[in-house]
């Protein structure tokens, strides 16, 4: 949900202050521009950047597209290789795929069972013509936190640009682009309790990262992203960043406690539950649990008065099990039984308790109905069963 403080900051720009920030000739434009620049500074402060390095976009998907396609295409005469991981967000993987049709080569690094990449594998993946490495900070499906500091160091050593999709990490864990040696970063508005439809991209100026712009037009946003900047949305993003910075510690502590409560309660009542992703290197607010011998979709339907998903919003329409789970080596059947629990600033203890209770109740009920569960109770090893063809 959007934070009320964010909505409050946006209200004037949705009503009286409706000027176009790029109009240089009248007060409406000037005040709109001032608000936009203030928002830019707020975003920059959250990540330790200079405000000239922040470009407003329509969301992290656009930022990811800009970063990957933009950098790749700009340097395409000399550099044709890109490194990314198998657990990236769809938009990153899709951008890479489209670049492959343009003649680029992409290495999709595998991840270990805990969801983290192997730094040694990253080292060996570099080639003399690698232009970009893209690794997301916090995974949106399993919540694991990649070793961004280390990856940044490695990329700096190889003189390759490092892009990270920080949509799920910004405002929730401290991020500093200089400390972490990040050259490009994608930011999403609605992931930090801001409005939907806005995001930003951080593009380093020293040493300068060059991008071929995706959107051509009037040259707004330093020529990198033409189009009128949506003032109310940008102001909202800025306010969301500022609030996130103030509330980071409080939120993190609370969300960690709620997450601990949820996982401990479920695991103590129900056997055969697996948490996907590393237990330590993670963001506590995104928990992905697999309930063995239960079909994920049926559990979701049973819990339909709770907002849950088995995957992420962008993949919720597809019936295939998540590619992220497959990448961490989850068995087909466990991958089908996974549910992602998202806990945030506005989640209450009662909501967590309600979800836990319903979850336990329905998992038990579904297992009672499951022939596989019966067989497991009788001690049969499921993998040894020979299913007959009818």
């Amino acid at each position, binding site marked *: *949900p959007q934070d*009320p403080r964010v909505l*409050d900051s946006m209200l004037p720009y949705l009503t009286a202050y409706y000027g176009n920030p790029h109009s240089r000739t009248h007060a409406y434009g000037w005040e709109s521009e001032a608000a936009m620049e203030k928002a830019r500074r707020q975003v920059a402060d959250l990540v330790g950047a200079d405000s000239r390095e922040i470009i407003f976009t329509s969301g992290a998907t656009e930022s990811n597209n800009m970063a990957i396609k933009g950098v790749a295409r700009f340097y395409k005469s000399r550099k044709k290789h890109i490194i990314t991981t198998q657990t990236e967000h769809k938009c990153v993987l899709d951008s890479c795929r489209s670049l492959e049709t343009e003649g680029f080569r992409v290495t999709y690094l595998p991840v270990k069972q805990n969801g983290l990449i192997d730094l040694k594998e990253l080292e060996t993946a570099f080639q003399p013509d690698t232009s970009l490495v893209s690794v997301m900070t916090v995974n949106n499906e399993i919540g694991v936190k990649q070793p961004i500091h280390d990856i940044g160091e490695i990329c700096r050593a190889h003189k390759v640009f490092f892009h990270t999709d920080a949509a799920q990490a910004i405002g929730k864990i401290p991020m500093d682009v200089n400390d972490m040696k990040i050259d490009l970063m994608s930011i999403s508005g609605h992931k930090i309790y801001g409005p939907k439809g806005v995001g930003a991209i951080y593009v380093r100026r020293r040493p300068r990262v060059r991008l071929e712009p995706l959107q051509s037009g009037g040259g707004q946003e330093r020529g990198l992203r033409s189009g009128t900047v949506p003032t109310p949305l940008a102001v909202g993003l800025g306010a969301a960043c500022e609030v996130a910075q103030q509330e980071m510690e409080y939120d993190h502590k609370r969300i960690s406690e709620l997450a601990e409560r949820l996982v401990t309660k479920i695991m103590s009542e129900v056997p055969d539950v697996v948490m996907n992703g590393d237990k330590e290197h993670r963001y506590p607010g995104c928990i992905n649990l697999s309930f063995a011998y239960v079909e994920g979709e049926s559990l979701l339907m049973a819990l339909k008065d709770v907002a849950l998903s088995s995957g992420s919003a962008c993949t919720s329409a597809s019936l295939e099990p998540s590619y992220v789970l497959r990448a961490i080596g989850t068995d087909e059947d466990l991958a089908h039984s996974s549910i992602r629990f998202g806990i945030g600033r*506005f989640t*209450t203890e009662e909501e967590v308790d309600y979800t836990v209770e319903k979850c336990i109740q329905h998992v038990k009920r579904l297992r009672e109905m499951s022939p596989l569960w019966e067989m497991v109770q009788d001690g049969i090893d499921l993998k040894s069963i020979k299913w007959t063809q009818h």
Partner: protein
Amino acid sequence: MAASSRAQVLRLYRALLRESQRFGGYNYRMYAIRRIRDAFRENKNIKDSEKIEELVNKAKANLEVIHRQV
């Protein structure tokens, strides 16, 4: 100025909580009440009058934010 007296702070606290009760949305209402309570509790031992005034002003601003949205 002894404007930021104990009584004034308590008045603000009660006003904030009362106004937050008027939030229609469950999550907003619960968050506001919880956050206000925790913030006041956290700052209850501050003695520096400048800091107190800063916090009081912040509380007043937040009261207006809530008021605009309930």
